[in-house]
């Protein structure tokens, strides 16, 4: 047998065994050695990713449990990891920040525990969770960027107590969370008017319907519904109809949404750091389950609030919880 022939070579057999042992025991070993090496892969070299990375490092170094070394990888993943191995800085964990970084990791060949962070939950569920990279071992987890649906309902319930009917446009990708929306609707006693963006005809009818029958509009992230092209028209028309528009990003609130519920890259960076810390502290063999953000901001557009104030009842206590 050719394979057995290859293995019979004592040197090759030794190498194979070594690799096997390193791979399988690296995360256990990591916690027993002094230095913890974390490879960080950022999707872009821009301020949000830097803020994420800085907060991640700050969180872990502040613990002083063990000495943590960070290695930012910005070239080929396989080559960079091999280089780290050679230099004695074999990564104990990989942190991928963003979709592009995650995509690169998924195509790499390693078995290092990986946290996919700063990505929407749908991205993790659709692209990562069941990927060969994560399927073959239990060392994948995530810190999502989007907010759980229940949280959004809870904040709207408190912030807009008069909003009895909440209009939501679901697009091709956000339609998957319809059941979560219905559960949250039941739990918080807010009637939802759901419309699916499928065809021209449906789009015309759904926006018509929502403007007529909703007290507020909640934007559920979906690139096909909310993007730079469509934001202008949607914001202008929700404002024209005096309907508060609740969104999911700082950009949206700056553009004209009444308020947004979102987590900053710093907050996600900190939570990712805490997830790693948990691993290091309790010597767990598996990564925890993916998490939605613990910390979030409710940011309001004060100018829009001032303008809508006499038409809506806004409870600014939602701004206290940051």
């Amino acid at each position, binding site marked *: 047998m050719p394979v057995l022939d290859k293995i019979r070579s004592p040197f090759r057999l030794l190498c194979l065994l070594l690799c096997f042992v390193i791979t399988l025991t690296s995360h256990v070993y990591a916690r027993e050695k002094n230095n913890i090496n974390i490879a960080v892969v950022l999707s872009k070299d821009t301020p949000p990713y830097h803020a994420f990375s800085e907060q991640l490092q700050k969180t872990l170094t502040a613990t002083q449990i063990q000495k943590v070394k960070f290695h930012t990888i910005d070239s080929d993943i396989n080559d960079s990891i091999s280089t780290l191995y050679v230099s004695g800085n074999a990564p104990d964990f990989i942190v991928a920040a963003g979709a592009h970084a995650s995509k690169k990791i998924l195509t790499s060949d390693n078995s290092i525990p990986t946290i996919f962070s700063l990505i929407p939950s749908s991205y993790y569920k659709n692209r990562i969770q069941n990927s060969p990279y994560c399927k073959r071992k239990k060392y994948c987890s995530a810190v999502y960027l989007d907010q759980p649906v229940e949280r959004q309902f809870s904040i709207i319930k408190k912030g807009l107590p008069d909003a009895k009917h909440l209009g939501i446009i679901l697009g091709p990708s956000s339609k998957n969370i319809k059941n979560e929306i219905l559960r949250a609707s039941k739990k918080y006693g807010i009637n939802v008017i759901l419309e699916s963006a499928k065809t021209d*005809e449906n789009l015309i009818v759904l926006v018509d319907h929502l403007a007529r029958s909703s007290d507020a509009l909640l934007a559920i992230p979906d690139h096909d519904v909310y993007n730079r092209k469509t934001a202008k028209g949607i914001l202008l028309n929700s404002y024209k109809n005096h309907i508060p528009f609740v969104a999911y990003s700082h950009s949206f609130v700056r553009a004209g949404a009444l308020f947004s519920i979102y987590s900053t890259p710093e907050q996600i960076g900190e939570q990712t750091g805490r997830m790693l810390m948990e691993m290091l502290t309790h010597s767990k063999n598996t990564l925890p389950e993916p998490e939605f953000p613990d910390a979030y901001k409710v940011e309001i557009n004060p100018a829009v609030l001032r303008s809508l104030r006499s038409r809506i009842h806004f409870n600014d206590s939602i701004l206290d919880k940051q």
Partner: protein
Amino acid sequence: MHNRCGYFYGLILWMAGLTSLPATELSEDDFLDELPVVLSATRLVQDKRDAPVATTVIDREMIDASGFTEIVDLLRYVPGFVVNYDSGHVQAASYHMLNNNLARRMQVLVDGRSVYIPSLLGVQWTSLGITIEDIERIEVIRGPNAASYGSNSLLGVISIITRHASQDRGVMAKANVGENNLAETYLRLGGGTENLDVKVTAAYRQNDGFIKRYDSAQFRQINARADYQAGFNDTLVFHANVNDGEVQEDNTFDSAIPNHPSNVVSRSFQLGWTHSFSASEDFKFQYYRQTHDKQNRYEYAGTGLYLDQSHRSERDDIEFQHTLSPLTNLSIAWGAGIRNDKVISDYYLGQQTPADTNKTYRLFGNLAWNITDSTLLNAGVMLEDYEINSTELSPMMSLNHHLTDTDTLRISASTAIRAPGIIEELTDVKIFTVPIVFDAGNLDPERTNAYEIGYIGRFPRYNTALDLKMYREYIRNLITLAAADADGNLPYHFANLDNVKTRGVEATVSFNPNRKFRIELSYSHARIQASDVRNTTQYANSSPDNSFSLQVIQHFARGYQGSLNVFYNSQMKQLATEEMRSDNTRVNLRLAKTFKLADSKAEVAVSVLNLLDEFEETRLKNVAGRRSYLSLKLEFK
């Protein structure tokens, strides 16, 4: 559900690239990428509770449900407003006091462009440069507010806001056909790219005016608007329009004037740039130029001699405004502007100097300071320097106290001036060598001081909102066209003759239990005391003591919509004469049905104006009669 809102939403999403929806994977870019500032500080409407003076907003739903085809009629919904017609195409509207056929004492803005015509000393409502279909909303400031809007906001400010070009993508075609030879067609085309939205509206409108008058009119109009998003923080907006009207003039008052046609052409061009630093800070720059030409030449009294009453106005205006919020509880808007008015008219200014200009410099600042969580102080001042007149300062101050989340009390004091216009200050009218109006020397600006106590309440339990206002206004130095003597002999001259005191109360009630049913009610009671030095009663009776409006809008199943509109005015002086017109009630009904076709929407509507056929025979012979018309509107890609 079928209603007008759907058009807007539908068109926007439809034209914005959602014609097919392949699932695009969401990424962090959707959360972290920047978006352009859409609702910039200058685009937002100040909330009623925080406004320094009482305000009324007429929104698109009210406009659609009104059944009106003339923009000026929409002001009938505003408490204290009087709308009247001098002829079918010379329309007038004013707040509290309407003694003249032009809204001389109102500031009227279309997207920030003052449409006041220097050669007319007023507003030509049929030549605003927009159609009724272009309007997003009309904000009316009920009271003087020169600190924000400058000269001419003596009685109030009407600010007409048109829709952003992104809200009108696709094609809209509309036709109104009805009694009194009413025929109107509108065609709007809109489109664009990710950063540029453009729309063009063309309209043809005609009607026969009043039954007993020679006052029919035909208007051809085209206007364009482009909105360009230059990066995330900069927007450019461009407007241009041409309005060409062929109108009939009659001899209702002067038998020397034969029935004859005249031609009115107005043009405007406007460029605005807004740079948004943040959601609450922006810098706005605006330039506009507008011209108004009226060709009006006729044979005088059958003498074979022709009198040329033609005139031309030009207005150039440049302004910048910086809106900022240096503290969380403080908003400031300040800016400066220069305006140059020019009037060319042999008839009004004399053959020796047929062209005159008036340059105005202005500097203004306004602040809104939340002294506490529940108390807001608005203060502002405008400094204006007129080339042909004096330098004037107009301050304003108000204190709004929010008693609860739903109740607000407001007290305010505001001032405004109306500086004499070119054809008041430099007039020289002669009919063939006979002096008709002469320049009697320098005039002082008209000045008003107004005080009001207001209450703004919201009653969520009853889905009702209430807005009350009690006021007193003192207007001094009213510029009156005075005859040479008490017998009314020629020549006339302009003089600061009269003073007026007005007091009254106004109320609006909005009942809006759901988005399918709505009631808007307004009431005004006003008492005017006027000096009327020449004893012409032109000011004393220039407002009805009582007036109200009611609008009920109901959206039924299967796309039906019905609306009832009722307007009442107690008796008042008719326009341009000293005769009284009796009290009158107008009722408009409108029934519409919306159809959703494959790729388009259609609306068919029947409107009946003046349902009760209230007869009003006055010296003006302005008998409107009951008029019905059919309307068909199509919107598609």
